């Protein structure tokens, strides 16, 4: 069996498990016998995330370079990072309100990755073009997609907060804390990715910063999330208002995600 099939199988299985985890997260958040639903949801997410991470490892190994040359390659990195973000949110704030949107989004990403892998055929070793081949590249790949996964989970958690906060203030508060925690976790990783990109640009172009679309959108996402942390955590903005800001940053997150691959670098 070729490695391509294994990737597709792992991603499909991962997508299925993540969908199940997302579906189970709904009763885990609202009905009785929560421990059962919670454990089922969590373990589905864990196993699904591991399956996606294994597919990502196979992809990385097979390509002989980090999969960051195109968005279709990068989907492999994004799905496990989003799952990691959700598991962190759940562990930190005990909030499962964001489980359905985050895990379903991760499942959609994994499924899209599986379809792309199946249509593109087998993996062919393809080292990066000259200039991209240096030590900063794996650091950039790992940090960028880990940060984008966690921050994407934070944005979806914020959307979940906005939905549940009016219905149940206690649940809403947990959801808000989870979103804040995810931002606090993801923001330093985003900074690392920007620094790795700067180091890479210095090696390749001879300048640390170049105002390319990749750099601009990452910087915009960083600025908005920094503003969120400043206003929410230290300047004591009302939780609902600041969470609106975080939920709206999902658009910028998508722009940063689209421009993160290095195809045109």
């Amino acid at each position, binding site marked *: *069996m*070729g490695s*391509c099939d294994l990737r597709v199988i792992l991603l499909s299985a991962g997508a299925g498990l993540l969908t199940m985890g997302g579906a189970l997260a709904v009763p885990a958040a609202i009905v009785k016998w929560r421990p059962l639903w919670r454990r089922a949801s969590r373990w589905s997410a864990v196993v699904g995330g591991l399956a996606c991470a294994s597919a990502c490892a196979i992809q990385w190994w097979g390509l002989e370079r980090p999969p960051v040359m195109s968005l279709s390659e990068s989907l492999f990195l994004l799905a496990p990072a989003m799952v990691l973000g959700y598991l962190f949110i759940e562990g930190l*704030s005990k909030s499962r309100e964001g489980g359905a949107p985050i895990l379903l989004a991760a499942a959609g990403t994994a499924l899209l990755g599986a379809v792309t892998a199946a*249509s*593109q*055929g*087998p*993996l*062919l*070793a*393809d*080292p*990066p*073009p*000259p200039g991209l*081949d*240096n030590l900063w590249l794996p650091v950039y790949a790992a940090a960028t997609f880990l940060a984008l996964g966690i921050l994407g989970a934070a944005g979806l958690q914020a959307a979940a907060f906005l939905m549940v906060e009016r219905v149940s*203030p*206690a649940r809403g*508060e*947990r959801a808000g804390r989870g979103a*804040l*925690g995810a931002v*606090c*976790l993801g*923001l*330093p990783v985003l*900074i690392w990715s920007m*620094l790795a990109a700067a*180091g890479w640009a*210095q*090696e*390749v*172009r*001879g*300048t640390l*910063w170049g*105002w*390319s*679309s990749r750099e*601009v959108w990452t*910087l*915009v996402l960083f*600025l*908005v999330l920094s*503003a969120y*942390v*400043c*206003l*929410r*955590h*230290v*300047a*004591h*903005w*009302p*939780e609902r208002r600041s969470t609106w800001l975080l939920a709206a940053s999902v658009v*910028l997150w998508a*722009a940063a995600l689209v421009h993160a691959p290095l195809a045109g670098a």
Partner: protein
Amino acid sequence: MNDAAQGDRTNETSLPLPPLTGGHKPVRGRVTFPLACATAVCVALAALVLQNLWENFRPLLDEAREGTGLVPMVALCGAALVAALVVAGLLLRRIKRLLTSLRMTGAALLTLALLLTAGGLVGPQGPLALTGPAAEAKSRPRKGESRKAGGDKAAALVRVAHLEDPGSSWAVLALAGFLALGSAAGILWRRPVGGREFGFLAAHLGLLILLGGLVAGHILGQTVYARLIPGATPTAVPLRPDREPDFRLRLVRTETERRPPAVRILATRKDAEAPPRALPLDVRSRASIVWQDLGVSVVDFRESAVPEIYVEKTPGRGAVPAVKIALSGPQGSQEVVLPVGGTLNGSSAPMGLALAYEKYTEAQDAASACRREEELQPYRLTVLQPDGQPRDSVDIPAGRRCTGSQILLADVGVLLQVVRSFRAKPGSDAPLAPGEPAEDAELVLELAPTGPGAAPAAVFQVRSGGKAAEPSGKVPPELSGMKLALDTVPAQPGARLVEGPAGTFALVEIDDGAPVQSLPMSVGEEAKLARGIRFKLVESIPAALAAYRPAAGPSPRASQPAVQLEVRSTSGSSSKFWIFPGLSGPRDVGGVLFSAELLPRAPERKAAVLEVIGENGPLGEHQLVMGRPLQLQGWRLNLSELRGADRPEGSQATAALVVIRRDPGLWPAYVGMILLAIGAPWLLWTRLRRVPEMTRRGS
């Protein structure tokens, strides 16, 4: 910080916990968020106005002098200056509060993000990139010029604010400077000491040092963009009229390393309408799979081989007539087998003689084939960069095998397929009518991208005609802006063997695409052709299976990848055969068609060997590899591009573009990066530990 300190005065060294619900009661003198937003917007607007005034000061002065005179302008400027001083004085009274306010920081961050978003949307790489009238608009709109579209107005605004290049926008720089001042004020007035404040101190100090390094590099650094040409006078670094340069650079040679092509195996059922499916077979690792009850394994893979056509004298499905030909001449002798409809040309032409074999059942068709003008030499498609430098070139099979053939432009990174080929008059898109004179007709190829990720229905035309031109039609993005030249001038003599009814043969000698002479032939007979080559028809094979295999032994002409597959059925029978992607057609094995395609590969390693010449003579040679900077006497050299090194002949590049920088702010910037990389997680993750505690408190 100030807002925080007002929230919790008892704990000045650590930031207070956020409230569980709502905000704080308004405190007198505190910077409110609307005020902070207004201040940030004012800072950006003031910078924007100043930048435009600065850039247009001379024309404005001239206009004022010619029109109303200087007095009104001086009065206006004076009034603006007084107003600005009053506002600045008011701001300065509360500067400490402003700079240390986190609401102010948040507002400045959001304003800066908004400006960059606008630039990112409308900038050159953005989804709403400036096109149409706004793209050509000057920074000051002309009098009477109307812009109906709101998008164009927004684009013009973005242009006025210089946001399409945020690094040159004073508004962006002013807000960044404001934020840097805020960080400095935070460090200065908060005086963070102790382990709990290390994160705050490291992150803000790192940010300041990083920004300071970037600014120092911008102001004190030097950049030389050198275009090094082989054989040209050495380039001085830096170029100074008053002082001797540090050193001179001369391009000795360029080095390129090509990557072997990638091959993908495709399979489909003969009776199925579905497109061929890519098999998960890595040809390099000699992998094996089971596909639809067939065991498929890669037996051999050659990155470059010379295809040699051969026939298996096995009648049955797919069998065709073939001939065995012996050639002898000054270069030696060679025997080849040629199936009907086949052509040996280009690198596979035996002894440099292009050969074709055709068979007709009607005598008039055979006679017509003897008179037909058709090149046997492959066409050559050359891709030229906008500056006229060749980028890539590839051979396309001539004649009947042209349509459907695949072309891999590896250096450009695109795989094309010939959709249609025909001859047309210059300037006309209509194919020549039968019988129409074809003296000045041009060859027209319709090409379309193929392979994974290819744009659907993107067909474009390329014409012969002696000069390169931009192709017409929907050109794939990889070829955008490039010129294509289609060369059809044959440089190889050839012969066409035409078999008529009742086993009669005629050998047509072809030169420059036109038949020179037609000689009747029979099996065992010999004829003399150009360059002293003797042609002998050895055998006529009525039914045979034609296929390609790599020629025995290494050859300097080897260029074609080849894959040998073995297919085993459940009944135990097996079939072993070679596939040449883009050359041989699909192979039918038990009702399943196997074929192969080439995939575009990333470009190769590129390097330039430079000779460094000091004041007292040559200092030695250095290899500058693309992506790996070279340190030289305090200068940092980066190879930006090698022009003309992508030609298939592997010839030397025509120029090397090298960026040479001396950046005194680089090491401070690295120190700032390290501090920021440590301080940011320290600052935020130490807060993270308190989140569950707050959650418990809330519940």
